[in-house]
């Protein structure tokens, strides 16, 4: 989740969430940055309204027939 925290930090600081920015934050935290994960993060967030996404409860949609216990 470090990558997500880095993204939230940048979002809160009103900075663009770019691969470079994420990498810089993580590196400063002493994290060995995985390029693919940083890229995946930026791609995942590309079309996302972050303020919205962080406030919207991420529960699995209530399912009808949860298998009987």
């Amino acid at each position, binding site marked *: *989740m470090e*990558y*997500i*925290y880095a*993204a*939230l930090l940048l979002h809160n600081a009103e900075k663009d969430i770019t691969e470079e920015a994420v990498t810089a934050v993580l590196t400063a935290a002493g994290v060995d940055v995985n390029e693919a994960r940083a890229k*995946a*993060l930026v791609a*995942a*967030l590309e079309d*996302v309204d*972050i303020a*919205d*996404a*962080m*406030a*919207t*409860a*991420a*529960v*699995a*949609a*209530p*399912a*009808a*027939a949860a298998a009987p216990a």
Partner: protein
Amino acid sequence: MAEVHHSEHIPKWKKDEIEDIKNLIESYPLVGVVGIGGIPAKQLQSMRRSLKDVAVLKVSRNTLIKRALDESSDDIKKMDDFIEVQTALIFTEQNPFKLFKLLEKSKSPSPIKGGMITPNDIIVEAGPTSFPPGPILGDLQAAGIPAAIDGGKVVVRETSAVAKAGEVVSQKLAAMLTRLEIYPLEVGLDLRAVMEEGSIFTPDVLAIDEEQVFADFVQASQQAFNLSVNAVYPTSENISTLLAKAAAESKNLGINAVVFEPDVMGSLLGKAQCEMMSVASAASGKDEGAVDDELKE
């Protein structure tokens, strides 16, 4: 106490004391002013010892402290404002917030003495006391505490405020409070202000609302989790939720759109059966002959 020696001839011990304080000011990044009023000498010694690894406590006369502050930097001079009554200086390399917490934790309840001003309301709660009937009853009443005898014991009849914040506590009341083991004072090193790198921090800033910090962490973790799921950024922490979300959505779609997939057939059949029962129930409510016998149970 208030020694006013404005003469040019300052005794050597005083000069040494001032120099000593100035040295401490220079050697530590953080200088604090603490109130030491009401701390018995013995307790002060033990506090000093327990702080040993964290901070240096310097007790001195206010005049000498002021002199040392005045002879230090302009910033440090601003700490003059906090020198009043019984004061000591504290020096540390600690984070000022940590120092504040440490000193707050060192405070302990302490009895109030006659003639002292109480800093807060003193409440005596209703309830039994440990005293058998005797002269104490009259003493309590004389001190304004609503005492009575009940079941062979002295009791306090009702909860009341026996002194308001800012009032002087009488000798009689102070003595009775102490006998009732009511300790209205908080005694300990009372940090009035600290200076670090030119900035003054006072207790209103130094007191951290830890519940709020905890709540912030809870909120931040939720936000992070929400974001990770809603943005579909799979990690080992959220992948189960993502899978469950997809599975639930699929099941919902299957049932709501009536897609004939083996995994949803059971639900669809159950739904149909339930609807049938409900409609049957409504119909038989109008006319029992409208439904067959197997539905009439």
